[in-house]
């Protein structure tokens, strides 16, 4: 078998992409962003990403299960919102995502651990599939164990298409030293971009390099991320949160 490691395998019915969402539902997600609760902004962005996957999975009038999805919401516990991995066709048949209700704490390590378990069981059957992706959305410091070692272990797991990708969307007003005024022209967080917040710096260490194939898909959607950008989005406005979720669905498709 050829080990290409370049994230070019296309998601298809026979080789579906696996995306695991880890969604922080701590109490702070009740705070407002552009006059809406952060959790509502996230819900809308995630719904849009699901819609985008449906868009990319239709051939003729039929929806082909090119994506498989798990959604783990976490607070002090982890809640498997879809009861396991579901095909995009099954999610479309349900019609809408389960509600996201903020709770108390924010134990991201537990969520990453559960994602690791899912990947350990799925990866042996995914050798011809696109590299799986874990998309983590949070708005604050983890209250449990340090998630970084687990994220690092996840990033070292691989299929021939490449290592498992980890993306982080960090909702915060104090992440960048310069505001991002034009999200569509923004070049992204690079390895040498300095971040104001200690937790953001940790998340940066837990973020994969944006594969070129993903970058090209985002360019088609008119987002100008530069080569070398990391899979990390500062959620300072709803559009950037949305770009983050769109990034998670940018697996190449046939």
């Amino acid at each position: 078998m050829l080990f290409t490691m370049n994230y070019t395998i296309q998601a298809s019915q026979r080789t579906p992409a696996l995306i695991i969402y880890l969604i922080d539902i701590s109490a702070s997600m009740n705070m407002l962003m552009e006059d809406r609760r952060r959790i509502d902004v996230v819900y809308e962005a995630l719904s849009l990403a699901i819609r985008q996957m449906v868009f990319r999975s239709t051939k003729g009038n039929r929806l082909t299960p090119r994506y498989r999805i798990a959604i783990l919401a976490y607070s002090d516990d982890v809640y498997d919102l879809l009861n396991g991995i579901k095909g995009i066709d099954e999610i479309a048949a349900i019609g809408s995502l389960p509600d996201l209700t903020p709770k108390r704490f924010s134990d991201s390590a537990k969520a990453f651990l559960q994602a690791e378990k899912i990947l350990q069981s799925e990866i042996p059957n995914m050798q011809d599939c696109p590299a799986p992706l874990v998309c983590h959305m949070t708005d604050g410091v983890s209250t449990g164990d340090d998630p970084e070692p687990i994220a690092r272990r996840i990033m070292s797991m691989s299929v021939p298409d490449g290592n498992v990708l980890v993306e982080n969307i960090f909702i915060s007003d104090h992440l960048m030293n310069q505001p991002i005024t034009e999200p569509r022209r923004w070049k992204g967080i690079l390895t040498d971009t300095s971040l104001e917040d200690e937790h953001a710096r940790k998340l940066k260490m837990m973020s994969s390099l944006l594969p070129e194939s993903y970058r090209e898909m985002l360019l088609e959607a008119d987002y100008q991320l530069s080569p070398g950008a990391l899979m990390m989005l500062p959620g300072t406005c709803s559009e950037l949160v949305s770009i983050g979720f769109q990034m998670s669905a940018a697996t190449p498709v046939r």
Partner: protein
Amino acid sequence: MKRSYAGSMDSWGARKKSPTSTYYYESKQTGEEPLTRIRDLFTCRYAYGRAAESVKLSEKGQDFLAFSLNEDVCRFVLCDGVGLSYRGDVASRLLGQGLMEWLENQEELSSASLERKLKELSHEADRELRDLSVDSATPKLLREVLEEKQRMGSEAMYICGRIELPTRFRRKGRLWLAWQGDSRVRLWHKQRELTSLFGDHFRTAERWSSRIGPVGGKPHVYSSRLDHESEYRLQLYSDGLNDLDAVMEHIPDEQVQVLMNALHTDGLEDDASFLEFMW
């Protein structure tokens, strides 16, 4: 749809004769066409196959292939419907049939007249595609996405062309080609590949849309005179056969069929069309 034919045809050893002077082939999109060889003034090979997924679900292929051989002139079109657009199978068929008609009836082929035809075809196709409806039993989210795609239109990539051999009444022949998209067209003369003559203009973002005609730029056109020399080979194929990209030499019929069968991947991963003319 095979209409008529005047040469000899080899399809895995089978040989048939037909009394008339024209051969016309049009892919049905609902079935496979094993590699077929025709020998006349042109020697022609063609094959058509659907992605394994489409075969399994009895769906139409999104490629469309058609050509006609009429004595010393041949006309051809290969379209690859864009899977992410609304009903790529319909777009490739409407575009392919429209272009074949244009190649048949247009005396002088030119970039300007092709552009006009592509625009004209978009109006016709848009009307036809708008008449298609999404099943009311379709889940809401899928229905919304399909309706959005329908509004955005249907798209296909294409290569089309005409070869006119030199004759007693036509001192110089002509090879005329036009394309948009990433389907492949390659040319050899005396076993030397001349494909670089077409330039680096095979881009996925370029295509025809039922809503606006050419997308991503104008059609690319290549035109050259043909003298009485022989040993030319013009080969066209869609991206479902991209394994051929690395093959420079003539590939035997059996090997083309092996690629079309794609047993190593349990069938084709994408629709595949193959067309080759030798003269």
